[in-house]
């Protein structure tokens, strides 16, 4: 897993069938990458639902959040619509898990992303990363602490 100080590997992933997100286009902004195993986990304990409530916090720190899993864009679209998510979910779908692998957070046996968080600074360097046990939703306090640290620089 990539740690603090490493250059965040660039990627280009679909957020919708016709919209690609390139990490390098977000230079000058803080970026949060939340890798997670799969769409459709139980509602209230769902990590993405929590982040959905926190967009104004992330905004305050000039940060854009992306969820990343190996689900396809169509699956993501249905999930976003069902959960009323207001931030992009990226499909690490083809080649499967390539970005998760580049960040060192791909679970080979399960064929899914691990549950991992990265905060990337405005220059594209990893400022903080965290690997959570697969069944434990890591919450958002670590992300906020990292963003706060960056805002002091």
């Amino acid at each position: 897993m990539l740690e603090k100080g490493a250059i965040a590997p660039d990627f280009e992933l679909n957020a919708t069938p016709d919209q690609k997100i390139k990490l390098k286009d977000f230079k000058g902004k803080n970026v949060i990458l939340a890798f997670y195993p799969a769409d459709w986990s139980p509602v209230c304990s769902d990590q993405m639902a929590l982040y959905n409530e926190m967009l104004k916090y992330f905004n305050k720190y000039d940060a854009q959040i992306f969820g990343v899993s190996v689900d396809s864009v169509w699956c993501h679209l249905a999930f976003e619509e069902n959960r009323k998510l207001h931030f992009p979910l990226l499909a690490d779908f083809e080649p499967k898990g390539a970005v998760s692998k580049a960040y060192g957070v791909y679970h080979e046996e399960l064929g899914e992303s691990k549950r991992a968080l990265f905060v990337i600074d405005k220059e594209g360097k990893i400022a903080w990363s965290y690997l959570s046990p697969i069944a434990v939703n890591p919450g958002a306090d670590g992300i906020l602490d990292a963003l706060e640290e960056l805002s002091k620089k």
Partner: protein
Amino acid sequence: MSTLKPEVSNQDHIQGNDSASITIVEYGDYQCPYCGDAYPIVKEIEETFGHQIKFIFRHFPLANAHEFAFPAAIAAEAADLQGKFWEMHDALYENQYRLNADLFDELAETIGLDLEQFQKDSTSAGIKTKIEDDFDSGVRSGVNGTPSFYVNGTKFDGGATDLYQMLKESTG
């Protein structure tokens, strides 16, 4: 290990014995079904452990996922201004299955609130801020879903049933 920030204070809704040795804080959402399931178990914990327990409820409405979560939290806070937070809290969970926009006035009448005052208070900015402050403290304390429990300031890794079990074992 996540800890409670800020600590319990007189700004909180506290139920039970002030000098209790065990302080339980729940971050909850009135529309969350898991919180609804936890509600009777929390009651049972309070009954079983009596004066050993102090129970605090803080709001953590997942407003995007649950359209009535924030209005319900407002109803509880508005009831608090008439000294009936816990009556509204209980009524909201007991009627969670039929939660809708018309329910709040009905419950306000049922628990004996001055309805006009309740409706006026429900639009107050102070109440909204209080709920947002609770949410903020939850985020800072590492709440990762609802309900989230804290025992004596430390995040408890489990649900209400696990909490009951743990208390039974630790209080012997």
